[in-house]
């Protein structure tokens, strides 16, 4: 199973799927890292709408992905946390998802854009003006 990486200007969008095995996760993370470097992405939105159960394994995959992205100098945000996932995560361990979360993709993109803007990086707005 391959996870598609969508591009929206300088922002990348990935949707984590339920049947992600350890090998898939490694493959997907290396694909993503490559893409981030290639397009000099400013932000990555990690969408977990498809996950209705986030166990500690999935939490690790999500967190690792978010921190990899940050190591490359891009912003990251987790979006699409389902209400019952949120309820369960709070019960399991408050800080299981380390990165910033947003309810949906729109909100996630907004957070990314605001953060990119505060960083004083103008590359995104330049792109938009083309």
């Amino acid at each position: 199973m391959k996870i598609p990486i969508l591009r929206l200007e300088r922002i990348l969008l990935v949707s984590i799927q339920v049947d992600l095995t350890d090998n898939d996760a490694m493959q997907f993370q290396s694909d993503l890292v490559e893409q981030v470097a290639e397009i000099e992405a400013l932000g990555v939105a990690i969408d977990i709408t498809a996950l209705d159960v986030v166990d500690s394994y999935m939490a690790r995959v999500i967190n690792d992905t978010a921190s990899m992205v940050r190591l490359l100098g891009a912003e990251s945000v987790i979006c699409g946390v389902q209400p019952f996932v949120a309820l369960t995560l709070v019960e399991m361990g408050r800080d299981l998802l380390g990165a910033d979360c947003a309810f949906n993709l729109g909100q996630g993109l907004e957070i990314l854009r605001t953060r990119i803007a505060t960083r004083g990086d103008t590359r995104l707005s330049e792109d938009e003006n083309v």
Partner: protein
Amino acid sequence: MTSASFQPQQRPHHIDVAVNAEADIQAACRAARQLAETLEFSRTAAYHIATAASELAANLLFHGGGGWLHAHALFDPQTQEVLGLEVLALDHGPGIADIALALTEGYSTGKGLGCGLPGVKRLMDEFMIESTVGDGTCVKAIKWR
């Protein structure tokens, strides 16, 4: 045989899932959730049970060398009312030498976050581990309805 051949009232009140591959973790998780829903647990409780089952199944595979995830309803013997759901994870793996340590938040002998077992303990109402080094592990957890 598919589950579609069951009438709703004939759906089983127990599940047994062999966990020997990564795909079995999801199967165990899904089966546990379905059982919780069949037993009319609240949605929140069903998610808690499903997540706990997923953690225990992952431990069976990654630490226990494979095993069984079993879950069943606990009935009141008089009224036949469903009192709760018990989940059992059984393996004949290496066992756990120091159970208190294994239950410590952040402790992992693998590459995990080490929040699986402490997470299950918080998600469920009762929690117990029996383990013999060299013989295997049995984790038991109950959610009351």
